[in-house]
């Protein structure tokens, strides 16, 4: 990937208001000089290994492998990052850039809240002011993360325009940025948005793929047959896939949110199925879920972090080239896969990550034990406690919340 140019095939670009032109120039300069400075990556790796827990392990899923009786299943453990998801990689990387650009404030959008928590954490660590934009619906379904962002010192602004989810939070963040770009950096949370964001986020997340490849090679002295990653904006997928791009032996599988089903209209599958079409929004060109007038649709997923109308231009290009296979997992399948993973391996993947597990579980049984697959566990499920409790209609949790509510109401 040529990190200096804004297009991946015909996707990407930099569709920004003139007011941000200078800011993007500056950001591109800072990014290019960081990429060209070998010390930067060393500093980044150092930070991630002392402040977070990199390299994160590659865990062999003994029980699940046996359960399906096919390919061996390995799990890349991004859940063990500080703040509980791969989002930390990107955020800490951008934090180092912010220091170089000498800005005093960061803003970010967040869907699942993981990116918001990671950004609030980075801001605390680097002594920056921090404002997080989050859709009203996501504020509700990812409430613990809102609480922690605030406790970490960030201001959390609830966005109630549009569909009140991730894309709307991105719009609000841009609106903040066009007012405050002089001292403010916008920490984009995924491999989307105007250039150089996709290139930059992909670079920071490539640490996942680098590690995974090394770890797998050290174990097996060969490559995995398939690599599975969920795709919201696409950052964890782009991160792990970069370790295996252009390896014909490795099939890369991206899993989008199938919501209530690909034919239900209530999903967030931009590349899988027939609902996506080319468009330009939020500063870049990609496949969007939009109507025939170009108005963005309301998406749906049980996983806030996948509930997004666009997808990384990098992935759209690789999809178009046939280098990544795309699939979708429904909300219901996700809960089943989560249950199985919790009870068989003692791992609690985030609802987002659970999408990747769904597809792997569908496929490994018909592969051979000589083959191996890797699932990217992009984050942990702690944040999803309210959603999971609702999905399982957990009676004792409900009772607890009712009584806690009464205690507070009194």
């Amino acid at each position, binding site marked *: 990937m040529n990190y200096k140019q804004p297009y991946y095939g015909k996707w990407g670009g930099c569709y*920004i*208001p*003139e*007011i941000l032109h200078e800011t993007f120039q500056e950001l591109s300069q800072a990014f290019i000089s960081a990429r060209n400075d070998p010390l930067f990556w060393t500093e980044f790796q150092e930070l991630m290994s002392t402040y977070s827990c990199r390299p994160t392990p590659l865990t062999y899923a003994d029980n699940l492998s046996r359960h399906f009786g096919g390919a061996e299943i390995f799990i890349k453990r991004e859940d063990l990052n500080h703040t509980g998801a791969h989002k930390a990689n990107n955020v800490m990387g951008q934090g180092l850039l912010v220091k170089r650009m000498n800005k005093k404030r960061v803003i970010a959008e967040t869907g699942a809240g993981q990116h918001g928590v990671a950004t609030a954490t980075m801001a605390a660590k680097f002594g920056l002011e921090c404002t997080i934009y989050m859709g009203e619906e996501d504020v509700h379904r990812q409430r613990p993360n809102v609480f922690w962002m605030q406790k970490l010192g960030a201001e959390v602004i609830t966005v109630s*325009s549009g569909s009140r989810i991730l894309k709307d939070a991105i719009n609000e963040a841009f*609106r903040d940025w066009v007012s405050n770009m002089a001292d403010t950096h916008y920490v984009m949370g995924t491999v989307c948005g105007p250039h150089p964001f996709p290139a930059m986020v992909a670079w920071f997340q490539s640490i996942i793929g680098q590690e995974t490849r090394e770890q797998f090679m050290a174990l097996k002295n060969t490559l995995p047959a398939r690599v599975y990653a969920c795709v919201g904006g696409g950052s964890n997928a782009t991160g792990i896939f970069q370790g295996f791009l252009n390896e014909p032996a490795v099939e890369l599988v991206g899993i989008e949110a199938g919501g209530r089903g690909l034919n239900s209209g209530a999903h967030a599958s931009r590349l899988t199925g027939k609902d996506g079409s080319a*468009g330009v929004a939020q500063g870049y060109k990609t496949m969007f879920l939009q109507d025939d007038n*170009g108005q963005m649709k309301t998406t749906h997923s049980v996983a806030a972090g996948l509930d997004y109308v666009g997808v990384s231009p990098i992935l759209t290009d690789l999809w178009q080239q046939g280098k990544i296979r795309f699939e979708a997992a429904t909300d219901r399948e996700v809960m089943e896969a989560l249950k199985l993973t919790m009870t068989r391996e003692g791992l609690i993947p985030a609802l987002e990550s659970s999408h990747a597990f769904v597809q792997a579980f569908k496929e490994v049984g018909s592969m051979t034990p000589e083959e191996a697959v890797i699932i990217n566990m992009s984050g942990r499920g702690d944040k999803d406690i309210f959603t999971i409790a609702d999905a399982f209609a957990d009676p004792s949790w409900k009772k607890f919340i009712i009584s806690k509510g009464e205690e507070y109401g009194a």
Partner: protein
Amino acid sequence: MGLENYIKKSLKNRGILVMTHIVLGYPSLSANEEIIGEMIAGGVNLIEMQIPFSEPVADGPVIVKANQSAIAKGIRVSSCFDFAARITRKYDIPFLFMTYYNIIFKYGPENFLKKTKGCGIQGLIIPDLPPEEGEDFFAACRSHGIDPIMIFSPTSSLERMKYLSGHGQGFIYCIARRGVTGHQTSFDKEFNTYIQRCREATTLPLAVGFGIKSKEDMAYLKGKADIGVIGTKTIKLVEQKGVQAVSPFMRSLNVLVL
């Protein structure tokens, strides 16, 4: 005769022109029509009509809400064209479309331009299409006889402005300040240097928009710029005082040549 000429000619009778803004379909097309009538009656010189988009990233809360509401009520791009065709036949001041690039991209740029031309629209303002991305499209605009309006901002350098101006036609839309539409703008020394830089960079007329809302603002801008843009202010006015408040307000903005 082209927007540039129209503007220069009109400036003979008026100290600074007024361009107003409406969101098509908000609160409804028929209300739009009434409001436009009031604007014309109030002596407005140009009108930009925004084709709603679900992600109006450069707009502030009032216009965002208007966009959302128009879409929720079912506004379609085709009805915007129909409306424009009728209005441009009815009134002889210039009308422009303002919209975000996806509306054009999805419609098909070539078709969009044909339709735009066909319904008598004279200019296009696209806040999220910089020339780096829009070069071909702006050329197509010009060849269809539609003026692509370039946008200057306080963060644009002189050199950048010259580059932008090279792609534009009709006039330049100068954003008065950082931020989105609908907030207060303070005219200070920094603003004056900015407008001087704009003048230096281009021979096209200058429109100043974002936060312009009173006769005082217009009077201040007179001599510095050629057009003052009234945006959010009209929406608020209609919401608070009704449609019939529009023409008196517009009339009040008239700044004499001397």
